[in-house]
C-alpha cells in the first residue's frame, strides 16, 4: 500500500498558541482516511495546513513524493477541498459555480463541460443546475460544495466535517456520496467528531488530541491496540446477574465482568464458548434473554481511553515538572 501523503513532524502555531505538535501521518491511496478529535483539537488546522493554506512552522508534507513547499500549485491541482462552510458563491447558479471553480483549477474548457455534467449527476443536482446556490437546501449546498471540490477531478478529496449540521437523512446521503467518490479511486480525507460515523466510513483513522496524533490506523487496529477482547452485552428478563457473574468469574477466557445498569458486559478473548455457557445457565435458571450483543469495543471507547491516557500522562508530567520545580 503506497502512501499518497506523508506528513513528518508537522508543527503549526498561531502566535504563541501551538495548534499542531509534531504530527506524523501516512495517508495511503485510495482510501478513506478519517481524522477524529474533539472540537479545537486541530483537525481543521491540520487539513488547511496539508493543503498549503497555512504555512507550517516545522516539518514536511509530501504528496506522491513531491514536497508541498516546492510544488504548491501541483498539489492544489490534485487536491479538492470542501469545508463545513459551503464555499460557493450564493449568487451564482450551480452550473456557474462549477464553471468558475473548474476554470480556476486549470481544467481545459473542453474537458470542463464534461466534468461539470459528470459531477452534477454524481452529486445528484441535475434538477438544480440553473438554481442559485443561495436557493438550495442545506444538503444540496453541501453537495454543491463537494461538487466544486470534485470538478477538477482531484486525486485526493479533503472534506472538513462534511456531515456537520445535517439531519440524519442528509448525513446518510453525504456518507453514501463519499463512498461513491472513493470507489472512483479518489483518496478521501475527512474530519469528524462523530466517531460512529467515522468508524463506519473510514479505512484508516487518526485520533487527534490537543494538536497531537495519539494513534492512527484502521479502526480494527485501533481497537486491537486498546483491547483484543470481545464484549458480550446481555439483558435478561429476571436480571439476576449475580449468579452469572459468580459462574463466569473464574473462567480463564473471561477478562472482566461489569454490571452496567440493566445489563452486564462480559469481556472475553473468545465469545463463543462463553455464549454457550451463558445459554445453558439461563435455561437452567429458567430465565429469558431480552437482548444479547457480541461486539468489539467501539471507536468511542478507544478514543475516550486514549484521551484519558494522554491527559493522565500530561497531568503526570505536569505534576512531576511541578515537583521538580519545588525541589
Amino acid at each position: 500500500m503506497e502512501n499518497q501523503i506523508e506528513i513528518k513532524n508537522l508543527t503549526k502555531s498561531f502566535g504563541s498558541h501551538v495548534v499542531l505538535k509534531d504530527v506524523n501521518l501516512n495517508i495511503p491511496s485510495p482510501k478513506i482516511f478519517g481524522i477524529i478529535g474533539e472540537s479545537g483539537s486541530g483537525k481543521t488546522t491540520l487539513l488547511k495546513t496539508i493543503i498549503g493554506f497555512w504555512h507550517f512552522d516545522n516539518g514536511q508534507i509530501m504528496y506522491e513524493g513531491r514536497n508541498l513547499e516546492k510544488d504548491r500549485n501541483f498539489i492544489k491541482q490534485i487536491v479538492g477541498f470542501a469545508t463545513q462552510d459551503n464555499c460557493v458563491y450564493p449568487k451564482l447558479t450551480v452550473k456557474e459555480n462549477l464553471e468558475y471553480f473548474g476554470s480556476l483549477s486549470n481544467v481545459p474548457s473542453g474537458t470542463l463541460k464534461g466534468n461539470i455534467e459528470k459531477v452534477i449527476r454524481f452529486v445528484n443536482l441535475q434538477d438544480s443546475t440553473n438554481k442559485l446556490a443561495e436557493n438550495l437546501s442545506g444538503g444540496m449546498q453541501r453537495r454543491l460544495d463537494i461538487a466544486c471540490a470534485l470538478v477538477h477531478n482531484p486525486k485526493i478529496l479533503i472534506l472538513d466535517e462534511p456531515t456537520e449540521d445535517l439531519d440524519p437523512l442528509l448525513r446518510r446521503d453525504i456518507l453514501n456520496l463519499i463512498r461513491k467518490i472513493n470507489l472512483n479511486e479518489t483518496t478521501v480525507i475527512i474530519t469528524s467528531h462523530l466517531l460512529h460515523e467515522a468508524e463506519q466510513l473510514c479505512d484508516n483513522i487518526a485520533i487527534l488530541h490537543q494538536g497531537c496524533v495519539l494513534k492512527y490506523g484502521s479502526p480494527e487496529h485501533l481497537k486491537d491496540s486498546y483491547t483484543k477482547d470481545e464484549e458480550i452485552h446481555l439483558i435478561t428478563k429476571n436480571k439476576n446477574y449475580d449468579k452469572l457473574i459468580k459462574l463466569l468469574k473464574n473462567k480463564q477466557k473471561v477478562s472482566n465482568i461489569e454490571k452496567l445498569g440493566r445489563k452486564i458486559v462480559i469481556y472475553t478473548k473468545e465469545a463463543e464458548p462463553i455464549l454457550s455457557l451463558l445459554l445453558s445457565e439461563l435455561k437452567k435458571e429458567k430465565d429469558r434473554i431480552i437482548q444479547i450483543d457480541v461486539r468489539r469495543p467501539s471507536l468511542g471507547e478507544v478514543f475516550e481511553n486514549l484521551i484519558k491516557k494522554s491527559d493522565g500522562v500530561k497531568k503526570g508530567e505536569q505534576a512531576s515538572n511541578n515537583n521538580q520545580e519545588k525541589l
Partner: protein
Amino acid sequence: MNKLLTIIKKNFKILIRSKSSALIIIFGPLLLILLVGTAFNTASLYDIKVGAYSETYSELSESIITKLQDEQYKVIKTDSQDNCINGVKSGIYHLCVIFPPNLEIKEGSEDLIEIYVDQSRMNLVYAIKSSITSKVSSRSKEISTGLTGIIISQLEESAKSLEEKKATLSSLRASTGNIGSKINSLVSTSKDIGESINTTYDELAQLEELNLKQQNVSGSYYKGMKILIEALKVEMRLFNSSTSTISQNSENLLTDIASYTDNIRDIETTTSKIIQDVNAIQVKDVESIVSPIKTETKTVTAERTHINYLFPTLIMIVVMFVSLLLSAITVIREKLSPAYFRNFISPTGSFLFIFATYLTNILIIVLQVAIVLVVMLFIQPEMSNTLLNLGAAVLIITSVFILLGMIVGYLFSSEETATVGAISLGTILLFFSNTIIPLETLPAWIKQIVDYNLFVVSDNILRALILFKQPLESTLQQIYILITYTAVFIVLIAIIYKASTEIYNIKRHLKGK
C-alpha cells in the same frame, strides 16, 4: 429604561471593540472636521500666481507689477502672450495680465491691460478678478490723483501769477484816467487855439477893411489900425502859449504810453507763460484723468454656462466615488464570501484575483463614463476631437481610484467599515480640492501637499482636456504623478493583500470558521 441602557452599552462595546469600525465611525468624522477646520480657517487667498507679459515693459507696467507683487501674489513674467494664456489654461497661473507695449498714460491713448482668467474656476475667479482689479484700480487712482494734482497746481500757479499782475492792471486803469484828462486838456487847449484863430481872422478882416478906406481916413484910421495890431499880438501870444501847452501835454502822454506798454508786455509775458504751462499738461482728456489705466477681463475659455465649467469636476466626482466605493465593496464582499477560501486554495495566483478585481471595476466605471461622454458629445459635438485623449486620461484616473478603493477594501474587515472608509476618503479628497473652497484659501504649506491630492491632479487633467481642449501632452506632469500613484498603490496592494489575508484568515480561524 434599564434594558435600553444595556442595549446602548452593548452597542458601544461592539463598536469600540472592533478597532477599524471605531476608528472609522467614531473618529473618522472627527478627524475629517479637524482637518477641514484647520485647513480652511482663513479668509485670505494665498499663493496666487499671476502670469505677466508685455512686448516692452514700461515704467507704468513695471509699477503695476510691483503693486501686484506681495505675499499673496507672485508675478511671473512669461516669454510670450501664448505662454501666459496657456499657463492659465494648464493651471500654472491663476490669471494672466497682458500689458500693451510701452504702456503709458497719454492723451487719447486706447491702451488696454488685458486680464485673462479661467472662468471655469467659478469659486475663485471672481475673488481674484476683484482683487487684481482693485490692485490695478489702486495704481490707477494714484495716477489719476497725480494727474489731477498737476492740473490743480498749474491752476494755482496761474492764479498766483494773475494775482501778482492784478496791481499792474489797476495802475493801468488809473493811468488810463490820467490820459483821458490830459487828452481833455489838449482838446480844451485846441478849442482855445481855434477861438483865438477865429478872433484873429475877424481882426484881420477888420484890418483889410481899414486898408480899403486909408486914402481918405487919417488919424482915426491909424488909431484903429494900432488897436487891431495890438489885439493880433495878444492873440498870437495866446496861440503861442496854447501850442506850448499842447507840446508839453503830448510829451507827458508819450511818457505815460511808454510806461503802459511795459506793463502790457509784462502781462502778455505772464499770460503766455500760463498758456504754455497749461499746454504743458500732457493729459487733459477727462476720461484719461478719471480712469488712467483701462483694463479688460477676458476668459481663456469660450463663454459657457456654469454646467460646462463644472463638467470635468462632475465627471471626477462620479469617477472618484464610484471607483472608491465599487472597488472597496467588491474586495470586501469577496473577502467575506464563503467562496473566498476556495479561491485561495485553487491553483490560481493572487495576482490574477487582484487583477481581475481591478478589471471588473474598471470595465463598469469606464462603461458609466462612456455613457456620460456620449451624452456630452450630443451637447458639445466639438468634443469629439479630444475624445481619445479624454478616454486615455479617464482610464488612468479611474485606475488610480480603483486601486485606492481596493486598498480600502483589503484594509477593512466588514462591508460597513469599508463603505464608510471609502466615503470618508472620497470626502477628504473632495474637500481638499477646488470644488468646494478654492485651494488658494489654504495656507501655502498645506496647499503644497494638497496639490498632489489625487482629485486635484485628476481634475486638472480633465479640465485641461475638456475646457481648454489641450493635448494630452500638456498634462504629462499630472499624468506622471498619477502613474507614480498607481505604482505605489500596486506595491501597497501586494503588501496589504498578503498581510490582510493572513490576518483575516487567522481571525476567521480563531472564530472557528
